[in-house]
């Protein structure tokens, strides 16, 4: 199976958000904790809608939460 090519900063952002738990993020995003675990470990690429919900939970722009591989951290390809 093709490995997802999307990186994310979820783990760091959870820490910066007052050590938000995976369950809290899952509740905010409307998914299960196991899905958040899979997204965080880059084993599952979320849908666009879920990606936006996760970013909204952190109150961050999408590009700060997810990066397409080959892309710089500032979001420029």
């Amino acid at each position, binding site marked *: *199976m093709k490995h997802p090519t999307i990186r994310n900063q979820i*783990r760091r952002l*959870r*820490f910066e958000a007052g*050590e938000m*738990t*995976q*369950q809290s993020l899952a509740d905010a995003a*409307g*998914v*299960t*904790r*196991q*899905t958040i*675990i*899979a997204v965080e*470990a880059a*084993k*599952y*690429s*979320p*849908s666009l*809608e*879920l990606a936006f919900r996760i970013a909204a939970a952190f109150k961050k722009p999408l590009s700060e939460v997810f990066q397409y591989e080959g892309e710089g951290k500032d979001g420029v390809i």
Partner: protein
Amino acid sequence: MNDTKPPQSMADRAVQAFSNTSYRELGAWVSLIVTCFVYVPYFSWVVRRFLENRLEAGDLLGVFLGAVFSQIFFLVGVHIGLAILLKDEPRDERDRLIEAKSSHLAYNILSIASVIAAVWIVIGSVRFAGAPEAMRFLHPIFLSQVFLFLCILAETAKYLTQGICYRRGS
């Protein structure tokens, strides 16, 4: 930052792995194990009886009903246990994706296996044309068991795919 403390022993690692496993993933693995546990002996018995030319409707029906009730009993019991131990959450997009993948694969396996089975039955009946063995391949009891085997094979593939997809992430 970590949701749990670093595991200190195998027992701790097992508990953490269990808590990171969703109800649906465990349900898939349990369904796979129960299906194999019930139907491997069942089809072994059917094949043995078929080869001995002793596959009779009366015996077959009793054994089949026993297999079905056993499967229901074990599945319901274990799923109740899992529901008590784990929180069952509504299906999210990953659950729906995995379910769609597993159903798609199961359908493909059922389709391909059906064609193979049909060809095998025709070849068998032609190969033994004129001989009593030919009728065995066309006997309704034999055909019913072939059909049942294909369905169980597809179900097994579905559960296995679900378990693997959950383990791999999607």
